[in-house]
């Protein structure tokens, strides 16, 4: 089995053990216990962490050394056969999200937007924000990062190179600015950008195009369309998704976007590095009670913040939370749609 890039010595030399000590979901009696569990994991032994992990990606962000602790942890889960979800659930989803080989190469033109496996959201790609955009979606282009939630690193190794090949063959082969420059791909979903940057680096998967995060695209576009912006003057609660932990630098870009459209990101307990999981993954892990608890804490925090919108960037988070959020009186909306609203689109 291929392995992710992880340096055990670097990990062993870490004094803070932030990966475990800062975990919001697993409690340790103290740093000594965290150290002991880390040692077990790094030695390829069973650890309660491997069983209790919510797979929220946070440790990847907390690691002060950029040492891919989360990817390594998932690798250990798979090696030891510690599955967070029942086998039929994983197998059926593997089949559901498998590439179908429905490939039809098309002439794409910039901006090319990757909608991942969310064809139902292609309506989001509309002017003025996405004027003349080419869009694609479907499981033949699915970034496959979700398997980090299911102890399936091997699937990422197996499928991501194929997805990259599909994207290149079908959409990006001839769409670079010139023969010397890499084509750009706007990633609508954090997960795709995280896959083609952080995951690809950690898994040594070459990426022959330049991924552009949605926030970077929107940020730049708002400068072009600044004359059209009508500030929304609203307070919003942001549901930061797990995959943003792989690319924390983009969170600052989001702040700039909010500022440009006249939106105040409520300072709440469960945002930024303390963001809570939407609850979708623990439900897949058959931990509904835990998901209920997270939901209640998160919603109460959103309501207390005085926000009128709950803003999502992850479509799955939105699908999971939108109804519950709306019942609490907040308007659920994707970042891109919020920006379109400010632009009158």
């Amino acid at each position: 089995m291929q392995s992710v890039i992880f340096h055990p010595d670097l990990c062993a030399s870490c004094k803070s053990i932030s990966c475990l000590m800062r975990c919001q979901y697993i409690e340790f009696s103290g740093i000594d216990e965290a150290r002991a569990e880390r040692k077990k994991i790094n030695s390829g032994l069973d650890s309660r962490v491997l069983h209790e992990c919510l797979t929220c990606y946070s440790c990847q962000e907390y690691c002060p050394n950029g040492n891919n602790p989360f990817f390594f942890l998932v690798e250990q889960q798979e090696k030891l056969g510690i599955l967070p979800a029942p086998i039929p659930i994983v197998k059926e989803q593997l089949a559901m999200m498998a590439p179908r080989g429905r490939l039809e190469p098309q002439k794409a033109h910039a901006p090319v937007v990757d909608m991942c496996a969310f064809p139902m959201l292609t309506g989001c790609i509309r002017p003025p924000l996405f004027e003349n955009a080419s869009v694609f979606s479907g499981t033949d282009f699915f970034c496959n990062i979700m398997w980090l939630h299911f102890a399936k690193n091997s699937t990422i190794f197996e499928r991501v190179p194929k997805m990259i090949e599909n994207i290149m063959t079908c959409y990006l082969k001839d769409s670079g600015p010139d023969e010397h420059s890499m084509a750009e791909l706007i990633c609508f979903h954090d997960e795709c950008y995280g896959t083609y940057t952080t995951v690809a680096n950690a898994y040594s998967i070459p990426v022959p195009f330049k991924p552009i995060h949605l926030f970077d695209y929107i940020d730049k576009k708002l400068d072009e369309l600044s004359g059209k912006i009508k500030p929304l003057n609203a307070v919003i609660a942001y549901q930061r998704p797990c995959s943003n932990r792989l690319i924390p630098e983009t969170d600052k870009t989001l702040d700039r976007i909010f500022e440009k459209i006249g939106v105040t990101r409520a300072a709440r307990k469960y945002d930024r590095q303390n963001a809570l999981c939407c609850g979708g993954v623990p439900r897949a892990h058959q931990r509904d009670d835990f998901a209920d608890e997270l939901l209640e804490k998160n919603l109460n925090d959103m309501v207390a913040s005085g926000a009128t919108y709950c803003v999502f960037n992850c479509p799955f988070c939105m699908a999971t939370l939108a109804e519950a959020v709306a019942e609490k009186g907040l308007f659920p909306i994707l970042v891109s749609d919020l920006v379109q609203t400010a632009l009158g689109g």
Partner: protein
Amino acid sequence: MDNLIKRLEEIVGPAHVSAAAEERYFYSMDPGTMPAAPPDAVVMPKNTKEVSRIMALATEKGVPVVPMGAGLVLSGLTRALKGGIIMDMKRMNRVISVNPASRYAIVEGGTSQGMLQTYLKKHHPGLKHSMPDAPPVATIGGNIAIHGSGHLSVLAGFHTDMLNGMEVVLPTGEIVRTGSCSVSPDWFARAPLPDLSGIFLGWSGTTGVITKLSIKLFPKYKHNDLLVFVCEDADLMPEIISRLTSAQAAEDMTPWMTPKPFWAKGFLHINIAYGGHTKEELTFRRNLLRASVKEYMDKKIAGFLPMPPPQKKRFMKLPSPDLARFADVKKGGGFEYVGAIMGIERFPEAYRAGLEIAEKHGVTWSMGARIIGAGHCMMFFYAYAFNRADKQDVARAQAALEETNAAALLIGGIPWKAEAPAQKQIMAKMDPSTRDLMDRVRGMIDPAGIMNPGNLET
């Protein structure tokens, strides 16, 4: 024949009788595989009195009568196998009254499921009845007459278990009542009287015409949700179903297995619908259901499919559109299934038999079940879609259906609303004394032998 048409016109008016070739063609078949059998005439009565007069006329003339609801039974039970009159009940479609205190509705025999559903939604939003997975135009009377089931069956059994009583017109034209309404002005139960309703339930329209009936209603919850349990081992299903039903928290439980979409192939699913008046009640019921099968989740051999709320919506529609969608897979408008009533413990062998038959005949298949009562039995179905315009395809489906009926009987099940060939298989296997009793009952009620002849005959 001209005289018959004239007499029928005198009863229901000329607009509601037809012997036109195109009408007779239209009424000669249903969407299933059974060959066409055109009636001589079609009549649409408006009330019980008209039904009574038609039956008396038919008996007088010895003309067969086939009562029909929406004609969606799929197994050809409403074909005029020996000619005669098809009595289309769709004009008798009134919701007569609803008793919210004792939770029942009195409807006319041709009232559709969709009409009652809509009526309740408008006038009694806190009540609902059990919807079968048929198009909304399917009639309540028709479904009751065949021992149908629906989305409240895990709670309250077959639709016949939800019946409080009926008004029925006998083949000779007499009007009789069964249940409490035969003594009381109220239609609240079949007890404590001798249960004469049974003379008309499961008889495939061979004993009388249901003109009114009282059906039980149930609380309609404000909050509703769905769980989908998944496993890979058919041998586990009886125990899983037993545990889930033991929680007594669900309204409906429907296992399903299908090779399409491709990702579902090889997996056994159980849709579990439940509800609550409050969110807390809903969560409590969910927790009961989850706890009942926790052992399987802990062993990682089965579990609940993660589905965000928007994905659940299509599974929660009543009636479910999925069977209708499957019915059109072959784009030829042909669809039929063997629904066999059997014990829960028969699930694994029923499933394996279905796989073998589908492979042998190369048919497009889907299998599933509806659990009846608290795991007391199930209606296990083998559905085959086919293109009606493709004779070979129809023949393949026919052969598969016949073999499936035989297989269901072999493993201890009984084909439900069986088509004519399957009825013969059932009758051949039936205890001779039971067959004899059936003949005597029918001979007494229908001395002229005019009620839907060709069905359930020994």
